[in-house]
């Protein structure tokens, strides 16, 4: 098999009804300068639930994730081609402003990156720049609601004016999620959100993802297959810039079609 991702079987394993569809991706290629990192990916993402991207390091998971909120635009030399529809609208279309797109598609990074400001200001930043609230009390409510949703409120409600960077790693990551939630996004992208966390913080984060999955479309990149199995409903396996396999998480882990997926999940390749 040479043309891997264009192999209709890989993508068509996941059949989603049009009304369940959040993202519709066709033939997406990303290159950094001369080097192509993603070689044409076709894939559909469901409106709710968690979609996990797994695959060996350097296979293009993060690159692909950044396609959904156009964060690749901020990398000098990065070029994206292909079709990416969000609710049927091409997000790379000429009249789409990435600033508004990113308000709809939030992102959580590998390393927790709260702003070196107070916890309150971290969460309030998004609503402020987008003008989402009319009054200070309304902003207070948004901050509280977002922190509650991110399961952080009880831990920080008495010290909202303390530095966000003073929290523990797991709390910082939940703060960043609250910060993203405060903008009222439809999608939350997470790039290995637990890779800098200890097992207990990881467990809390996974719990949180599970709570959020009914309300938001969540796409998570993870290098931990156990995590993908625990939190996701669908899993896409990437290898060397190709989408190799995409199916219900159960199927991918118990009954993979491609030998490379099998090798990867059984630990024969890293």
């Amino acid at each position, binding site marked *: 098999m040479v043309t891997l991702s264009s192999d209709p079987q890989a993508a068509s394993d996941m059949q989603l009804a049009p009304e369940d569809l959040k993202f519709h991706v066709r033939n997406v290629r990303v290159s950094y300068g001369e080097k192509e990192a993603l070689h044409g990916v076709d894939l559909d993402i469901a409106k709710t639930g968690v979609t996990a991207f797994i695959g060996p390091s350097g296979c293009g998971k993060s690159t692909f994730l950044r396609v959904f*909120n156009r*964060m690749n635009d*901020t990398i*000098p030399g990065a070029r994206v081609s292909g079709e990416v529809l969000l609710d049927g609208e091409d997000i790379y279309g000429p009249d789409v402003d990435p*600033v*508004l*797109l*990113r*308000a709809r598609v*939030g*992102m959580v*990074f590998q*390393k927790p*990156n*709260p*702003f*070196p400001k107070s916890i309150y200001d971290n969460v309030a*930043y*998004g609503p402020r*720049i*987008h003008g989402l609230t009319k009054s200070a009390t309304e902003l207070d409510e948004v901050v509280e609601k977002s922190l509650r949703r991110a399961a952080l409120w009880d831990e920080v409600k008495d010290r909202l004016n303390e530095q966000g*960077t003073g929290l523990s790693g797991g709390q910082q990551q939940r703060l*960043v999620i609250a*910060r*993203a939630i405060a*903008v009222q996004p439809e999608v939350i992208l997470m790039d290995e959100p637990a890779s800098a966390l200890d097992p207990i913080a990881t467990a809390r984060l996974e719990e949180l993802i599970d709570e959020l999955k009914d309300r938001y479309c969540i796409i998570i990149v993870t290098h931990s297959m156990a995590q993908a199995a625990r939190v996701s409903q669908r899993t896409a396996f990437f290898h060397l810039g190709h989408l190799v396999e995409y199916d219900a998480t159960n199927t991918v882990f118990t009954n993979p079609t491609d030998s490379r997926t099998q090798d990867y999940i059984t630990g024969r390749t890293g």
Partner: protein
Amino acid sequence: MSDATPPETTSIHQSADAHKLLRKRRRRERGFRMMGMSAIVMAMCALTWLLISIVGTGYTAFYQHQMTIDVVLDETVLDPNGTRDPDELRKANFRRIIQNTLYARFPDITDRRARQDLFKTVSASGATDLVRQMVYKTPSLIGQTLTLEVPTSDDVDQLLKGYIDREVSEDRRKLSDQQIKWVDELVASGEVHARFNWAFFTATDSRDPELAGIAGAVAGSFMALLVAFVVAVPIGIGAAVYLEEFAPENLFTDIVEININNLAAVPSIIFGLLGLAVFLNFFGMPRSAPLVGGLVLALMTLPTIIIAARAALRAVSPSIVDGALSLGASKTQAVFHHKVPLAAPGILTGTIIGMAQALGETAPLLMIGMVAFVTEIPTSITEPASALPVQIFLWADSAERAWAERTSAAIIALLVVLLSMNALAIFLRSKLERRW
């Protein structure tokens, strides 16, 4: 052969060769450390020597000998017509008043030559100016007797500071034996005494060293620095932010970047020439003015500020900007809400260091005429002014011993300001620096 070195007990790292190599490595390490230490010791010695020599010659300028005299404000001398006309009063013969005061103190001296010598023990213009000011302000003082402290002449001051050798024969000395006798008498009676030299900080430049101060030069430096700050900081930070964050990467910005780096290495006198050609000759701005000096210093500091600000911006973790962008902040918002505030301590440090450099600059100010002999404290940035380093340059050129100590004292003042600025930079950096 193999019996000689039983393989099972000797690791390859314990062989004789390995030990030899290890000794060599250790020797190199010691050698390098010695070199580093001796370099530091040499630098410290040079610095200490510099400081000791400057402070050693300069500290005596911070005190000054004053003479207490009873001045009789004789109406027949000052205002023979009794008009109290201010213009007349200003022109009155205050010199005679001071002379009479001294003659009254030593009534035995009647010889004309001797009286002249006696008068030379006080600062002629210092004493007359002081009395003239007082009478001009309060004409009702005329007719009264005032007890005043006036500066001694610089020669008397130098004698009492021990810089004039009493053992040297009279004709090779600035003061005659007779003058020394009078001074000793006045010192013994407590009429001549040392005082803290406030005038050094409150007076402007003067032909007489005992009256000269740095206030005018400090004011000139301060104004020039203010102009440089107001011009260079916004432009420098703006340029740095633009180049670092928004400029497209192309040949043009590459050339701009190379030129900024080169500009930082251009000798300062070239900036002075530029200021002369552009600001004075082309724009016709006033000569010797802090405005032009400040503009030249601004041009000179710009590269320093731009380079420091760019380094500070680059040091901000990109993850912060990514975080802001991912929330839907525009690039400008991400930069100005997050990156610039986080880079502020670094930018500030660079700015202060740039300003400190500018404060010490002499050559460009010489080119635009800030070497004038100015006896007024400038009140606006377009008035002629001097600057502290230029003042040092001017005083260093004068021969008298009294100027040497003032030169050193002015250097001390400049160093104190420079060190405080650098200390402030270090303090702000450690205080404001935030971790993320």
